[in-house]
């Protein structure tokens, strides 16, 4: 059981000697990402908050991407998805990712539409 851990991360570029050192390595990575996130959240650099890509600020893109990176390493190394069969991995990850993207996209588009209705139409909340 213990001997069949997959000990390489970053697509095989970084290989650990034991499962324990891999755990500490992943922990270091997660900590660095969290520190970057918090630092950016406190500083909020001007050029990241004023420029937008697809109506979302650069800063928020960075936060979302770093979150997905963190989620990947938690799932792959802490929850041992790296060591499971491909079938189990896909059954879990693809299902969840597809449904979440679907749900989030619909709700955000709808929320934006309602914002426009409040803003442009006769209903006003300026009191």
């Amino acid at each position: 059981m213990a001997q069949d851990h997959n000990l390489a991360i970053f697509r095989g570029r970084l290989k650990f000697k034991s499962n324990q050192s891999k755990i500490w390595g992943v922990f270091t990575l997660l900590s660095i990402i969290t520190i970057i996130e918090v630092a950016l959240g406190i500083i909020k650099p001007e050029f990241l908050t004023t420029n937008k890509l697809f109506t979302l600020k650069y800063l928020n893109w960075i936060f979302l991407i770093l979150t997905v990176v963190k989620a990947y390493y938690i799932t792959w190394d802490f929850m041992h998805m790296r060591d499971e069969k491909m079938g189990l991995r896909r059954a879990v990850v693809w299902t969840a990712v597809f449904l979440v993207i679907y749900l989030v996209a619909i709700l955000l588009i709808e929320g934006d539409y309602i914002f426009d209705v409040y803003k442009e139409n006769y209903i006003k909340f300026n009191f």
Partner: protein
Amino acid sequence: MDATVEKPSTENKTWNGGNKPLNASYGKIMMWFFIVSDALTFSGFLAAYGFSRFKFIDSWPIADEVFTHIPFIHGNFPMYYVAFMTFILIFSSVTMVLAVDAGHHLKKNKVIIYLFLTIIGGLIFVGSQAWEWNTFIKGSYGAVETKGGKVLQFVKEDGKRVALGDFAVSIHSERTKQSSNEAIWFLSEKELPSVTLSEVTKGFLADESLLIRTQYLDENGHRIVLSRDESVAKLTNDGRGIVEGANLKHNEYGTPLFADFFFFITGFHGFHVFSGVIFNIIIFFNVVIGTYERRKNYEMVEKVGLYWHFVDLVWVFVFTVFYLV
């Protein structure tokens, strides 16, 4: 593991358990089923939060201005405490996965130590969350609520926040808290706010340097501050009551929906952490009395570990959506 798990001969069968595509134990697959469904529940909450935020995108509270406190220290520290909570949870995930690893090597004492550290981490996290709720419910500066349910906050000319009690002029009033033993038995009310609207208005009119900050954001994401004349007009025409702190109906930081989602999502997550701690404690005692040692199989630690990591995973998303974005 080979000693305890019986292996029915399913190798060359098409049905009836043969042809195992997932090749994981029943318990682990079921835990993954649960995790997927629970992840969808959480994403439903977070998507609903995103929906409401997009609906009020020009007046949503800024998390940095709401969560600025650290226990036992006064001052303005945006985000630090939440970052600390995140580290605690990630670290308890690390000790959990180390416990799982020690279990694979059948090292009972190491499993005990790591599980114990995990439980401690979980308790610190739940305690921190309780403290954060308490701070949020109590509030910090107070605000005036308008007829339309929007909040008006008070700032000096340099943009620094001012608490209601700092400028309100005390006016004698006969109004006292109504309790059920002084009136009709079913009539009572919660704690009255520390100042009244007329006291705040009088103090505001007396101090020329005070301005009103609305809950609306300009295009750069900063709150719009009204001019002195606009402020006076806004307060006298639209002010309706005092809000101090936050509950499900009123929220001094902005739209009440923000408070609702805060209580609901972090509460639901905190409940998961709490139940995770309970599971960990049960498993901890099972390890201590040697249940898994006799089975020569620590898979139960791994299954509970999956749940615990999932709680951490959810927090990563809650942290981003609630505090960062």
